[in-house]
């Protein structure tokens, strides 16, 4: 889900505004090494903080905070998005099964 409050956007050093995990993932795939490692290096991990405080996903934040390798970080985010989508679909599936079983009776 995209953030509505513009004060909470993530502003990257190459002037990109990130409003969601999807935006973040896209930027991580496309940005150059200088920009990327400006935000994630041995001293800091700006994304982990943003993911935790603004996106409120502590699971992903903790995971990212431990990683330094760009590919690994991207994989971790992709996995998390996948997991969340599956969860959402599972809910949809259960609801539609319930509906089918009951409402057509």
């Amino acid at each position, binding site marked *: 889900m995209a953030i509505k409050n513009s004060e909470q956007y993530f502003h990257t050093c190459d002037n990109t505004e990130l409003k969601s995990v999807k935006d973040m993932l896209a930027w991580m795939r496309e940005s150059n090494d200088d920009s990327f490692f400006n935000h994630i290096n041995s001293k800091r991990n700006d994304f982990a903080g943003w993911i935790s405080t603004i996106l409120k996903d502590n699971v992903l934040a903790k995971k990212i905070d431990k990683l330094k390798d760009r590919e690994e970080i991207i994989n971790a985010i992709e996995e998390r998005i996948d997991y969340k989508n599956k969860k959402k679909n599972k809910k949809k599936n259960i*609801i539609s099964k*319930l509906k089918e079983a*009951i*409402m057509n009776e």
Partner: protein
Amino acid sequence: MNSPKIVGVVALKGGVGKTTVVANLGAALADHYNKKVLIVDANFSTPHLGLHVGLVNPKQNLHPVLSDDYSIYEAIYQHELGFHIIPGKLAPTEVNALALKEKLEPLREIYDIIIVDSSPSLNNEMAATMDASDELIVVSSPDYPTLSSTLHAVNLAKKQNTVIRGIVLNKVRRKKFELGSKDIAEASEVKVLASLPDSLKVLSATAKMVPVVIHFPKEEISHIYKKLAGSIIGEKYKKISAKKSKKKATLLKKNTKRKD
């Protein structure tokens, strides 16, 4: 939507909060909106509406009315909170549930609104409430088993051509794992009228046999109840000043104590 005269509060699941909703809507409509309200216990097997409003062992009740042993007017209690109530018989006997509609009909003229509490079982008792009501409110909670019962109730109402006003989602904890009101509205194709939080204050009020809207008028849940009550009769909810409502609550607590 026009305001209905007889509103049935239903759910095909026990313990979701039907009786609590009936008691609180009754109290809110009488106390906050000054309406002539009657609440009726049509849960014939486990009639507990009286116990939610301090009426422990009512002499007159709905059961013998349905078997024509006495008139419905004799079973009406005037409650000190402003509403009227027809309680059920605590040790219930077999009843002719389907006579409910006919018995309630003459009361339409007397009251602004009549709210009927119902049984969670899929039997004549539930059918009687659906049959007697102009509109239904389905009480649900944000989990799959209750959603399943809600879909069932909605389906049943549709088959009986009873209008469903909407769903009241009760015992909401606002947890991520819960179903949201959007999920429930989409699944049932019925509007969610209100989301009532799961609240210890309700349990505390129930223990005192006073509806939470009266016992804790400033609680979030009480405001939601009053807003919901207003929406049913087409009136906008205006909060009364905290000072006034506190005074009222103290007065009522005193009154209920004196009666015990």
